[in-house]
């Protein structure tokens, strides 16, 4: 009995200490004093050297946290436990956060480096006049494949190539309802924002006819599989494809001509911000031509920063797979915020497609 009591006390004391330590750490993040900012970003989405450089130049310390999905990020911002000064949502999430009144308007006079951004990427439909957002990176959804492992005629300039009988059990898809349903709709020549049951039905049937070719529907695990030549063809985002191609030079990437998704990730200042001036300073710093060029080099996604592009290796920015020209961009569409009802339908159809895999 005595040892039981001792053990209980030991556990309680240990828990109390851990709780106290965690509270101290959290408080450090939540305090948000003049000389710290908390940046909430996707994983592997910034050159860490630049964070150090920012602190050196401005004296503002950066607490850096990462998330792996827009939805998880929004939930944390909504809860308001941590003082995030900067977040990096995708465009449809910007719309949702605006609806939920989670964003603070930007003061453009504090971001003079905004002039560096290609006007094509400003004043977009999801945020007219850039009231809340500054574009950070952009990209597409396309097909990464290994030309040494597929038949020569498959170049994936059309989605139809995914249905090729030679690819039986070889195709990997990313586990996202918008991406996969969008691909189905695009392959029919329809818009990936379609709100029409008939079209979604047709797209689902079209996808179901693809199931013999599908090996698996997974997430980021696609990257090592493609790098190690364990997978042949995968539907993925352009930046992820760039990462894979960096590691495995055999790989190639294509955005089918029928159309695909064009996405933007942007800096925003969420309502949780405690150091709004610091957040503006950070955004402005990241838009500096040299800083941005260095960051683009590290991250590998496509940059909207025109001044930075002039400093980058011409070979990179002339690569139409990652920097499609305006004519190609005509075929690309930005995800619209479908609203929960249609998002639910997309999800149900996607689930039906997944169920057909076996």
């Amino acid at each position, binding site marked *: 009995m005595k040892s039981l009591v001792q053990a209980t006390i030991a556990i309680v004391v240990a828990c109390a200490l851990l709780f106290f330590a965690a509270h101290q750490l959290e408080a450090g993040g939540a305090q948000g004093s003049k000389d710290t900012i908390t940046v909430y970003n996707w994983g592997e989405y910034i050159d860490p050297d630049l964070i150090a450089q920012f602190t050196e130049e401005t004296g503002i310390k950066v607490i850096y946290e990462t998330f792996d*999905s827009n939805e998880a990020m929004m939930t944390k911002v909504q809860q308001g436990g941590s003082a995030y000064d900067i977040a990096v949502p995708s465009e449809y999430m910007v719309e949702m956060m605006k609806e939920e009144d989670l964003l603070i308007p930007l003061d453009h006079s504090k971001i003079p480096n905004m002039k560096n951004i290609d006007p094509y990427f400003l004043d977009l439909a999801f945020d007219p006049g850039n009231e809340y957002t500054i574009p950070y990176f952009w990209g597409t959804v396309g097909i990464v494949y290994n030309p040494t492992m597929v038949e020569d005629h498959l170049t994936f300039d059309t989605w139809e190539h995914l249905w090729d009988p030679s690819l039986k059990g070889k195709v990997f898809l990313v586990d*996202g309802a918008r991406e996969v349903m969008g691909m189905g709709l695009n392959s029919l020549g329809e818009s990936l924002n379609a709100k029409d049951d008939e079209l979604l039905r047709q797209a689902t049937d079209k996808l179901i006819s693809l199931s013999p070719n599908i090996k*698996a529907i*997974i997430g980021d695990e696609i990257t090592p*599989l493609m790098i*190690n030549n364990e997978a042949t063809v995968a539907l993925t985002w352009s930046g992820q494809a760039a990462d894979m191609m960096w590691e495995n030079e055999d790989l190639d990437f294509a955005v089918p001509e029928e159309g695909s998704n064009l996405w933007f990730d942007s800096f925003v200042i969420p309502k949780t911000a405690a150091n709004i001036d610091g957040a503006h300073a950070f955004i402005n710093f990241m838009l500096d031509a040299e800083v941005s060029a260095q960051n683009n080099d590290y991250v590998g996604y496509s940059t909207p920063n025109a001044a930075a592009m002039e400093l980058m290796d011409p070979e990179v920015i002339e690569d139409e797979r990652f920097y499609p020209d305006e004519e190609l961009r005509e075929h690309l569409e930005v995800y619209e915020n479908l609203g929960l*009802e249609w998002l639910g339908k997309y999800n149900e159809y996607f689930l039906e497609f997944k169920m057909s895999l076996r």
Partner: protein
Amino acid sequence: MTTKVSKGSLFPYVIWIALFVIAPILLVGYFSLLDLNGNFTLANYVNFFKPAYLTMTLTSFWYAFLITLFTLIVAYPTAYFLTKTKHKHLWLMFIIIPSWINLLLKTYAFIGIFGLYGPINAIAEVFGIEPTQILFTDFSFIFVAVYIFIPFMIIPIFNALDKLNPTLVYAARDLGASRFTTFRRVVFPLTIEGVKSGIQVTFIPALSLFMITRLIAGNQVITLGTAIEQQFLVAQNWGMGSTIAVFLIIFMVIIMLLTGQKRKRGRV
């Protein structure tokens, strides 16, 4: 019989159960009655009886059944031989140690092990077998799930076997029962309670497995757990997600009733 426990000392437990058992279940029940706009509706329940969810329920049960069956087939003999060894508690600990390692970490390890260039295919190649992709198949899914659940099945069975009075076995053998008959008529019936709790701790979580359905089965296997995750995180339809959870709770209650009805033995 009067209880010696005063009502006051039960208070913390009542609070605990109210806050962390009853309240969440009530909340899940409440959310299951809401549609996307927060209005009361039974549509989620109607929705559940659509073919997609019914098929999903059946596949969930089928895979949970297979996982439990194979786990039992591996775990019972293991537990049995463990009780026969000299340092049985030491060996038991070795079997339990892997369950101290994070589940996700073990799952990722299997991605490497089963990979096209992983050790299993390397060994197969030595014997002249063409390397094949073992990942993303029914086999890999059930293998990994069984691996994960084995310690949880072994512990209750081991405890039941450990408590078994060996003289009963000697008596059966003395009276002429064969080894097999002794096992079938004496050992197994006396350890059935251990088997039942092992089945409970395996079957019920197996019904709602979701992470390894994606990582190991590549979504070739869709369980109710996957559906709940998607409803909450992607579709943000808490109503439908909760409805599926309500059905899971109902299924689990049924399983508990089926596997745990022997209460009479408690009274002597």
